[in-house]
């Protein structure tokens, strides 16, 4: 990846990541995170991981973040009030801790033996064929375990998010509901945005 492109993408990534933790409205935080993830996807593609980059855009941005958006709307979350004076000590030590962590990671990375540099990767590097070759040979057991994990997560999410009133009379139709709408009938959505609460 050319240096200029890297600096451009890195600047967007850092600014949008700061946006995730500094904005008060959860929807704005989520949009900043979406921007970070897309920026990362572009960076992956620039580093030759084309398939992983596109999968990041499809799975992370196209599905997981939409799930977050649903939950924010479902719970009708408004912007937090600015006077967050109660946890001032935690905030102070949080920032200090993050700064110490950055310094520590930098020291580690400088000391760590770095690979010689970006040599030219083999042809088809990062293509779906090369990924599948590794995935279904060396990582086959991990792959199967991950599928099991996903199944458990889906069942667990449905079981957790189902409304207690509906728990006794679980009809087959409700049991087969997708995760995203697992609790959507439970609580009416009240889409009132306070005029002052919008950034």
């Amino acid at each position: 990846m050319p240096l200029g492109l890297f600096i451009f993408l890195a600047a967007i990534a850092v600014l949008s990541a700061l946006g995730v933790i500094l904005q008060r409205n959860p929807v704005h935080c989520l949009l900043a995170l979406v921007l970070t993830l897309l920026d990362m996807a572009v960076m992956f593609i620039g580093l030759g991981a084309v398939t992983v980059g596109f999968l990041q855009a499809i799975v992370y941005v196209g599905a997981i973040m939409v799930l977050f958006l649903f939950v924010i709307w479902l719970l009708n979350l408004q912007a937090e009030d600015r006077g967050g004076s109660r946890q001032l000590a935690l905030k102070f030590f949080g920032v200090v801790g993050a700064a110490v962590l950055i310094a520590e990671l930098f020291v580690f990375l400088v000391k760590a033996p770095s690979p010689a540099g970006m040599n030219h990767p083999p042809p088809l590097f990062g293509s779906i064929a090369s990924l599948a070759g590794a995935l279904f040979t060396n990582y086959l057991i991990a792959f199967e375990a991950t599928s099991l994990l996903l199944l458990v997560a889906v069942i667990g999410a449905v079981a957790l998010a189902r409304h207690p009133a509906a728990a006794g009379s679980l009809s087959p139709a409700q049991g087969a509901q997708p995760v995203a709408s697992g609790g959507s009938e439970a609580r009416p959505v009240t889409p009132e945005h306070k005029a002052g609460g919008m950034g």
Partner: protein
Amino acid sequence: MTPPSWFMALSAVLFAIGVAGVLIRRNVIVMLMSIELMLNAVNLTFIAISRALGSVDGQVIVLFVITVAAAEAAAGLAIIISAFRNRETVYADELNVMRW
């Protein structure tokens, strides 16, 4: 060409931003988002090293991380919905009693 260590420096910065987000925010959903941010910072390291070594293993691990993040988001958000039903809040400092 950008040396791999630059990508790792960026990854360190993003990871620290994620840690700071978990520590300073009250909203549990934003905390979950910060965790996703940390996972992605680690992914960036994997991809950069994978490119530097010319090996595809790092990319496979990133695929696993994305899958686990999907499972984590589904379970985490379900727990948040369930907690919100009982306590009417998503703020971590108000969810301080470990019983319903």
